[in-house]
Every structure is written in structure tokens, then in C-alpha cells.
């Protein structure tokens, strides 16, 4: 039988992690994702008991999460379930909606701060052209980061996730790493 070894989006055997000062960037290789779109005239379902968030909202409920991506559109997050058939799991919870697998289309980098919100907000103000006041805990934006489209999810005061297209995982990692490095060398 062919012996295949799984690799992460960055081509490594294990998820990559690096730290600069208070900030740690960690590749989240286990994040399962599926998009959920309402069809015309449908009301929002409540997959896994979650109330789907309003404009620019992100929710976490136990082993599940969801964030708003557009009018009547959400991404459902299943942490540590990347190997599962995520779309089937979500579709079972929202049988009327349009659900598509997204897990291997995206790469997720979790950034945590050991010194509260300030280092994260300094990082965000270097990376994206969004008012950081509008990106408090439980908020999400889709925007451009060095000409790449990303979702930035503020999971908590001291934690955020950057989701980008898997095909440019390396470029996104480079952008995050370089910016964190520069911020560290300044302080």
C-alpha cells in the first residue's frame, strides 16, 4: 500500500508555531470549516444549538463556532475536526440551507498575546486597514492583508485567528511572522 504522510498547509509534518515577545503564532491545522448559506426567504437555523451571529459577529459555543461572512451567510467552525466530513455534520444540523465543505480551502493561524490586548491591537493596526475598536472580542472582519483576502476573528481580548486561502499559507505566515518580528524589535 502507498505510504502517504500527511502534511500541513505550510508543508510541515506538524503545525508550525513561533513566538515574538508577547505574541505567539500557531498554525491551527485541526480546524474544520463549512460554509452555510441561506436560500431565498429562509430563516436562520441554529446548528449545534448556536444562534447564528448578526453582521460581523462571531460566536463560540463549546466545541463549535460560527462567524458571519455576508448577508445570510456564515462559516461554521469545528475545532479539531479537520479530518471529519464537516459539511455532512453541518448539513445534518441545517438540512434546508446550502452547506459546502471549506476545511481544506483555508488555513488558520491563531495568534495569542501574553500581555493582554495591546500587542494584538498594535499588530492589527499594522496589518489591516480596519479600526481596531470595531474588532473587539466576538467580532470578525473579512478584509485585505498584504493584498490577500483574510478573515480576522477576535476570539477574545488576547486571542485572534487569521484565516486565509490555503494556497497562500506560506505568504500569509511570512506576513504575520515578519510583522510580529518588527513589532518585537521596536519594543
Amino acid at each position, binding site marked *: 500500500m502507498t505510504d502517504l504522510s500527511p502534511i500541513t498547509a505550510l508543508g510541515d509534518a506538524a503545525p508550525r508555531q513561533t513566538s515574538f515577545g508577547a505574541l505567539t503564532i500557531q498554525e491551527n491545522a485541526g480546524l474544520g470549516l463549512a460554509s452555510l448559506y441561506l436560500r431565498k426567504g429562509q430563516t436562520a437555523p441554529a446548528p449545534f444549538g448556536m444562534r447564528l451571529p448578526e453582521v460581523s459577529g462571531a460566536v463560540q459555543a463549546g466545541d463549535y463556532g460560527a462567524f458571519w461572512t*455576508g448577508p445570510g451567510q456564515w462559516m461554521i467552525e469545528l475545532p479539531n475536526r479537520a479530518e471529519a466530513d464537516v459539511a455532512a455534520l453541518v448539513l445534518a444540523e441545517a438540512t434546508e440551507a446550502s452547506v459546502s465543505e471549506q476545511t481544506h480551502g483555508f488555513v488558520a493561524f491563531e495568534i495569542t498575546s501574553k500581555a493582554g490586548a495591546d500587542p494584538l491591537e498594535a499588530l492589527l493596526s499594522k496589518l489591516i*486597514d480596519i479600526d481596531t475598536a470595531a474588532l473587539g472580542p466576538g467580532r470578525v472582519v473579512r478584509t485585505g492583508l498584504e493584498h490577500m483576502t483574510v478573515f480576522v476573528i477576535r476570539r477574545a481580548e488576547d486571542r485572534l485567528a487569521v484565516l486565509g486561502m490555503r494556497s497562500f499559507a506560506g505568504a500569509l505566515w511570512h506576513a504575520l511572522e515578519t510583522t510580529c518580528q518588527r513589532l518585537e524589535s521596536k519594543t
Partner: protein
Amino acid sequence: MLIPHPLLGPRNAQEFTYLGDAQLLRRPDPQAPDAEAAFCDYVFQRSNPAGVHQELWFHEQGDRSWLVVTRNTVTHEILGAELACDVAKREGAQ
């Protein structure tokens, strides 16, 4: 340049792609007797005024919505932005 997105607030125009004249929302009736001439205008004629103009912009690096942006093409002042689906619904209701 900032575009005041009706749902997301002011966003950098670099997140958007530009399509042009919002007249494209007003597709003629293909069953009408003058449909051929109307479609010829619809497909080939675009207004390009020096002044206030309604344009279609796509929020590509955002929520992927189409907007109708009212812009002064001389001063680049943005006078307003609405979701294109809202504009189409309103005009369809009339």
C-alpha cells in the same frame, strides 16, 4: 478613498472592485416589442458623466456584496452607498 458600506461602515476602496454604471441593474423586458433596441442600449451604452454618477462596486475583500455607490466623478466625493439588492428590490416594487 473610503466607501461607507451600509452594513460594515467605512471601508477602504481597495477592498472593492469597480464594475461601472449602475444602469446594469435595470435590465429591459425581453418580451417587449422594442426588446432588441432596448437590449442593444443595455449591453453597449454606458453613461460616463463628469459629475454625480451611480456605479456598481463589488466588495470582493469583504462580505462579497454588490453596492450601488453614488460618486462625483469630478471630485471623487462619495455621496452614498446602498446594497444593490435593496435598490433592485425597491425599483422592482415600483
